[in-house]
């Protein structure tokens, strides 16, 4: 059975290429049909915000890559509710379907995967 990866994405979407490079790891796993889940945490939760306008920064829209995840078979998407809350985003709609998880569920997720990669 293939080994699984929990990718923890902690970078804000427009703070450099960190967030995009983390997503590329996920897309590559999908391309090889390997089991990978993503947990958006810390500033990474900002990647899921609706109504962002990266074109104001002449940046490529990360949301295209995010929307591509299910097509690549990456369907286990989680977002740390606590990290949304401290940013004043507790009830905001998300641009992508991701399960809102509490700390206990995150502990479980970590234990359920063979590898944890944080970027």
């Amino acid at each position, binding site marked *: 059975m293939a080994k699984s990866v929990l990718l923890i994405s902690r970078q*804000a979407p*427009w*703070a450099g290429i960190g967030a995009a490079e983390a997503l590329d790891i996920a897309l590559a796993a999908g391309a090889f049909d390997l089991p990978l889940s993503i947990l958006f945490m*810390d*500033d990474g939760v*900002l990647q899921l*915000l*609706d*109504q*962002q*306008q*990266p*074109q*104001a*920064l002449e*940046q490529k829209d990360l949301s295209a890559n995010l929307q591509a995840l299910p097509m690549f078979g990456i369907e286990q998407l989680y977002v740390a509710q606590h990290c949304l809350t*401290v*940013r*004043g*985003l507790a009830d905001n709609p998300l641009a992508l379907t991701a399960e809102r998880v509490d700390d206990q569920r995150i502990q479980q997720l970590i234990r359920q995967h063979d590898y944890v990669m944080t970027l």
Partner: protein
Amino acid sequence: MTTLHIINAAPTQTTQLSSCLRVLSAGDGIVFCGEAVQALRAGSLAAQQLQGIDHSCKVYALEEDVLARAIDAEALPVTLLDYPAFVALCVAYSRVSSWT
């Protein structure tokens, strides 16, 4: 002899914003750009820090960064800047301090 402070780090890397606020003189200005504009998001922990700021200090934000991040800047008394306005501000204050 006022100073224009520029901050660009995310408020979750807290020392940039809090250190800047500690050493602000009356009449100084702050420009939020890059991830620092997250501090302007209503309801965030960082936004609360900004409430105590001296009334003689003006708060500005780079408009493109506010737009990109879908922040409703109307919740705070913030003046949005384009680049020409940003340059004009740097001329108007006596010096610029970038908290990189």
